[in-house]
């Protein structure tokens, strides 16, 4: 059985991210980590591998040096191999173009299951996974919190999170599943794994290798264009009310009525 896991290196939740003054982009502090939901996807693939049988786990990312870090984290956790999709032509792509490249690379890999995170921490669009499944004409189930593989590995029982409960779905393989919080708890890569990962060879695939024309990837193949970023509006200055408690209460009620107009 071959499980592919799609991963992405994203800004750490503690990194400072600021919209540039002219709104043309964002400035991100150099603190990156493997996307949280992707780490759950890698963990799940490793757990399935741990259940026995001949399972190979391949992790895949699209994107340069930062991508390599994500791959190394996955390898350190215990994945068997890693593939970096890297070509200048891939740059600047939207979700559609990104999924196009990923799907083309996966086509040649004979995968039985694709795991990915429910969304990336940075742009939170959450559509790359399902798009990949569409391009590969395979079913996809999103926000998965439990995966139970049938003994013949031809299908799986999936639990996914829905508003106020869970949905149980039976789906045939190959399938793409996106991991939601609660699926598992990702392991901390062991030191020995980290060292092995640092030395591991990472397979690179470029545009020629995946066999797509340059017109359908990267910027050229994108359907969307980000026009600008907006900063959060500045919070207005805080007014401190002074005086006796009863007096302050009266002032607050007044403000809620006249200024905020909420009561």
């Amino acid at each position, binding site marked *: 059985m071959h499980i592919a896991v799609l991963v992405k290196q994203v800004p750490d939740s503690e990194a400072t991210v600021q919209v540039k003054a002219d709104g043309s982009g964002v400035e991100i502090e150099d603190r990156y980590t493997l996307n949280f939901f992707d780490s759950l996807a890698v963990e799940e693939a490793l757990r399935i591998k741990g259940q026995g049988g001949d399972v190979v786990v391949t992790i895949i990312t699209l994107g340069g040096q930062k991508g390599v870090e994500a791959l190394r984290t996955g390898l350190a956790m215990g994945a068997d191999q890693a593939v970096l999709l890297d070509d200048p032509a891939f740059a600047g792509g939207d979700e559609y173009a990104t999924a196009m490249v990923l799907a083309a690379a996966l086509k040649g890999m004979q995968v039985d299951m694709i795991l990915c995170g429910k969304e990336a921490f940075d742009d939170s669009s959450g559509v790359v996974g399902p798009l990949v499944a569409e391009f590969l004409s395979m079913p996809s189930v999103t926000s998965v919190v439990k995966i139970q593989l049938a003994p013949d590995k031809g299908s799986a029982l999936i639990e996914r999170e829905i508003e106020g409960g869970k949905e149980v779905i039976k789906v045939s393989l190959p399938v793409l599943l996106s991991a939601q919080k609660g699926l598992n708890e990702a392991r*901390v890569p062991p030191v020995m794994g980290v060292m092995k990962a640092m030395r591991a060879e990472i397979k690179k695939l470029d545009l020629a290798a995946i066999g797509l024309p340059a017109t359908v990837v990267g910027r050229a193949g994108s359907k969307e264009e980000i026009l600008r970023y907006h900063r959060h509006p500045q919070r207005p200055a805080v007014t401190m009310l002074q005086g006796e408690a009863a007096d302050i209460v009266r002032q607050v009620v007044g403000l809620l009525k006249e200024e905020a107009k909420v009561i």
Partner: protein
Amino acid sequence: MERMDAVVVGAGLAGLTCAYRLACEGMQVLVLERGDHPGSKNVTGGRIYLRPLRPYLPELWDKAPLERQVTKEVITMMSAGAAFTAQFTSDKFREHSYTILRSRFDKWLGERVVERGGFIVPQRRVTDLLREDGRIAGVVSEGEEIPAHVVVAADGALSLLAEQAGLRGPLAPRHAAVALKEVIKLTPPVIEERFGLSPGEGAAHLFFGAITEGVFGGGFLYTNQETVSLGLVLGIDSFLRHPAARETHAIFEAFKGRREIAPLIKGGELVEYSAHLIPEGGNKPVRQPYTDGFLVAGDAAGLALNMGITVRGMEFAMASGYLAAQTVKQAKEKGDYSATTLAAYATLLKESFVLKDMETFRRSLDVLENPRMTGFYPAWVCKVMEDVFWIGEGPKQRVSFTIWKGIRQGLFNLRAIKDLLRLRRI
């Protein structure tokens, strides 16, 4: 599982230097660091003296991210409301000592280690020593066993590992000081103007006296490229014994508010705040810095020196890390990692400036810890100066007389004479 040549615990100066040397020698080395990256947890004053270190790592210094070369030495003695400052500059003080920010420097040094093929794994706390047949054979990090021929404990002042290896006891209050430090951001032109420096030049400013409110210790200010490092060091033992010591941060705030300090940091933005231990061990290093399969370097080995006019720990950390690496290399060549072979480390340390300087200044703390050194004497100097400069309503006495009177009142007693004689130990 494969056995590393060496596992180094702690990506501080001692650990990184050791790992760097081992990697340069083509040995398999792994550094485990509990912080997010090398330098993330490390605090120093600080300034580093390059002259003792150049022979060890000649290739490193030209590109090292040092801050400013210190060309101005300033010492201020303070009483409650007065301060006497002595300042020294010299054309000779070029490429002598440099201010340094560890978060930047250690990160850089870590990159050099990795570049040479060493491994650094951050966010890993070493919790235990791994033993095989009673002898140290690696480390345990959060349950994971990591075998190695040698463990180099470079885990800083509180070294749990040196303790576990039986080389030293737990750190006693008498053996440590606590330091509070703020890194305050200004701009290079403002720093140069406020401290009277040319671009690239820096000042090292120490403060003694009333600022520590009766507790043994002192303050420091070092100018970095675009920040200043302002800190206060308080002896823990002295602090605990002091009947009415205020909380450390209250003492620090009062220090910052002093008329002599406030204008220097005015308008600055606080970018880093830290608290850290300084091992002062009575300036005594661990007696035996090695055992079977185990070496200890840097602060972990008690290699830090308070000389009064300056604190030195970083050169000792780097040199001891370097010498530990030399020892491991010899052990590998011999294929023997027992204490007998590793004892060479103690000899190397003794022959180097590290233990020579430690020995010379072995008793300087006895002198400095004298409460009168931070209490009576700075206040006395300020009082004499006040009298010398004061012109009041009445008739004024001769300056020479005023000074003489001050000396008679302050120093003509048995205690002071004893103190003076003791000064020879510094």
